[in-house]
């Protein structure tokens, strides 16, 4: 049995914006996620990381390409099989205010998935809701309250409990801590880590805080204007970033201590181009300090240039 849980193959998600123009939010992306790992996904706003996450779980239908889960192609799955895949893949959203229905009690929010998948009924269902609340660090009595009665960090815990309710094996966490205060972020990150250890969960963790992504992830993918630029083991990516964009991204990270200010070398680049009218060739070519003639003409291919280190850049072809 292979240890690959999610396989993404040449996935594309284009949006039509009128006049025959398209935004290529996800453009020709291929990678796989191993069972039990955390794959971090970083990129600036508009790089398509959220669209990628949502297309993978099937929330958006792909324009072309495929996603397969535990060996089954999402596009061909039907009926019971499809429901089963839907149960196995869950999402945690960024904004804990708007991702919970304000008119439902917390218990009802968490129980929705349990009912939809027919996992439990009556007393057993209530029992499960209570267990889930305790699991995410809330009190069973909280099931009777409404979302507005909770703080941001607590609401994010409710969102996590809802995702866990159907006993998934794969969770896409889309910026789950970005809206939270610093002191609360660590609580939620530790909770996610504990749950992973407990239930062998696999995570796709989307974020823009590089230090946090490095801390959480086994591997990290770097996206830029809808394309995957580089994918490698976390330590490897930080020790030896290959793509010029990754190098820029790492150089712009704030220092962790004021004494490092003088040592840092910043690579300064211009403004990002519009996703509506992306550059030809490599999308990063307009800002790249090492761009060559060929970069303007064709897009580089996605290749494994070193063991487990993938990059799309002509410097390595």
């Amino acid at each position, binding site marked *: 049995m292979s240890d690959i849980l999610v396989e993404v193959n040449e996935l594309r998600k284009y949006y039509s914006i009128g006049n025959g123009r398209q935004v290529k939010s996800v453009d020709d992306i291929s990678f796989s996620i191993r069972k039990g790992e955390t794959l971090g996904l970083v990129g600036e706003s508009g790089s398509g990381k959220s669209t990628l996450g949502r297309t993978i779980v099937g929330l958006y239908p792909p324009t072309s390409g495929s996603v397969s889960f535990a060996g089954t192609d999402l596009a061909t799955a039907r009926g019971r099989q499809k429901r089963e895949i839907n149960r196995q893949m869950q999402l945690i959203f960024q904004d804990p205010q708007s991702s919970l229905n304000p008119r439902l009690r917390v218990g009802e929010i968490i129980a929705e998935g349990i009912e939809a998948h027919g996992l439990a009924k009556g007393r057993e269902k209530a029992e499960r809701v209570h267990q889930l609340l305790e699991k995410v660090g809330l009190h069973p009595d909280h099931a009777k309250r409404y979302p507005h009665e909770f703080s941001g960090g607590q609401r994010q815990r409710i969102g996590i409990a809802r995702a866990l309710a159907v006993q998934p094996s794969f969770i896409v966490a889309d910026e789950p801590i970005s809206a939270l205060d610093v002191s609360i972020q660590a609580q939620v990150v530790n909770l996610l880590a504990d749950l992973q250890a407990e239930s062998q969960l696999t995570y796709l963790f989307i974020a823009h805080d590089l230090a*946090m992504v490095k801390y959480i992830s086994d591997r990290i993918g770097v996206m830029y204007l809808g394309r995957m630029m580089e994918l490698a083991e976390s330590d490897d990516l930080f020790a030896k970033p290959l793509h010029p964009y990754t190098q820029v991204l790492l150089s712009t990270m704030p*220092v*962790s201590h004021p004494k490092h200010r003088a040592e840092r070398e910043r690579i300064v680049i211009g403004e990002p181009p519009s996703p509506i009218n992306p550059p030809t060739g490599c999308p990063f070519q307009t800002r790249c300090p090492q761009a060559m003639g060929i970069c303007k003409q064709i897009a580089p291919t996605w290749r494994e240039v070193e063991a487990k280190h993938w990059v799309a850049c002509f410097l390595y072809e």
Partner: protein
Amino acid sequence: MTNVLEVEDLHVSFRAYGGEIQAVRGVSFAVRPGETLAIVGESGCGKSVTARAILGMVKAPRGRVKKGSVRLQGRELSCLGKKELQQVRGAQIGMIFQDPMTSLNPTMKIGTQIAEVLIKHQKLAKKQAREKAIELLAAVGIPEPARRYEQYPHECSGGMRQRIVIAIALACDPELIIADEPTTALDVTIQAQILALLNDLQRTKGTSIIMITHDLGVVAEVADQMAVMYAGIIVEQGPVEEIFDNPQHPYTKGLLQSVPRLDQPSEERLIPIQGAPPDLFAPPAGCPFAARCDHAMEVCAQYMPKSTAFSAQHQAKCWLHDRRAHRVEELVSAGREQHV
């Protein structure tokens, strides 16, 4: 040299349905010339309200500065009228807000928005104001400033807009710039550029900056001094390096520990601060952090601790540093072990 800004015992409250929210409860600090002071804290700690109070922008009837003094170069601001305050804002204190999307007027040309400030405060003629505005756009790193002058805010990216806001803040060579989360809405690559720009401008012009942020990375990047706010109170303040190396308040320690360092191995757990900040309708009588503090003693919940000085500028408000509280080190190390 005299301080550019001195804030003393500032109290700000807001009336709300549930009663009175005591957003700022006795804040004092000073900003020296050419220095950057970072005010750090989580949402609701009162850091933005402090900035607004300095600028005289706490709006009646809901909000009220209940007590305290704000002196800009020795001149008391809290008793100034509306007109006089407007003269101070823009001319002597520049402002940069978090959201560059909403702090510019969408119906006015970019250039006109900068020139407006120059015409009002420096009494420049229209033509001179235009020239100076284009110079300013160039100074904040906007390419083709003359063309940009004629454009509207929606034609610019977020980073570009924040540069324009900075140009407006700088227009009259203010002594002090107050920047409220100026890079929070921006991507990291743009954030780095904006912070570098502020640093450069400060070096060339000698402007003092108050940087309000929740991001310790931003503090490490730009600040000379920092003040850590919690529930309307500055719990610790001092030189940035000293506080990063040797935080004296458990809350500051907690904040520094709860963000991962790049050299932190993934096996090592983050140390979160448990619980949540207190309700400011009825703030606790004692230290506001006591309920979440690993080292809290009985006294902490009942009486507000006094300030203890650790060096000329470094001070913190915590009972652990009271001379009657023995064995601080033991308490701290015992607390640490609990987490491991």
